[in-house]
């Protein structure tokens, strides 16, 4: 039905615009779960490079860092996550790449 809106980019700026457009603009053809920053939700203050169990979900198969638009991590925590992952990579706790 309203195909135009569905892939309009899930950017954050959009949400503001939607509010002004009213009900019509908000209609979505499919269910989409609201993404929440894991670290804010679980109240994890300290993203440590030694904690591989915490970091592993953010480096899927190809061992690239999961982008924010997919994981829903907030900017501050994504930044901390990035330094933690890079430190862990240096110590060979997490791979740089995977074949």
């Amino acid at each position, binding site marked *: 039905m309203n195909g135009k809106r569905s892939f309009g980019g899930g950017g954050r700026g959009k949400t503001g615009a939607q509010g002004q457009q009213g009900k019509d603009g*908000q209609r979505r053809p499919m269910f989409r*779960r609201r993404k929440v920053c894991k670290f804010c*939700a679980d*109240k994890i*203050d*300290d993203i440590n490079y030694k904690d591989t169990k915490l970091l592993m979900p953010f480096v899927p198969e190809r061992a690239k860092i999961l982008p924010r638009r997919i994981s829903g991590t907030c900017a501050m925590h994504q930044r901390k996550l990035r330094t933690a992952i890079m430190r862990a990579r240096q*110590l*060979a*706790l997490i791979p740089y*790449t995977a074949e």
Partner: protein
Amino acid sequence: MARKYELVYVVSPDATDAQITDLHSQVEAIAQRLNGQIEKTDNWGRRKLAYEIGPHKEGTYVLEVINGGGELMKEIDRRLKVTDLIIRHTIVRVDEEQSVVERTRSKRTDMSRRRRVARGLPPDRQPGEGQRGDVDDDRDDRFDMNEGLER
């Protein structure tokens, strides 16, 4: 004010236990010489490396938490670089980050306590009170498909 550093080094899997303790005592000696001290050591044991480093596929990880100045860490860094047994090492300064974490944590507990008192509840959460998990998901209807059907 004293700084706090974390040092993690990966020792080659061929090294014997005696050699590993020897490395630890070397680090300790440097720390003492440049008036720092080792707060904690932790041997993680042998772990598989995430990728091969030269010929190695495994390594023994050792973590040391050291109180001391920048000069001390520079010296340790230099020494570890020339040690053949060590295949990787990193030094990270942790004191600043730790204090920030502590501050946010205490701020948060303070806030929640104040709010709870304002609502007339005891300041600490009682056991078995409020299952947050279920409530969270229910509220999550911003992008629900039912929204369009309301009209």
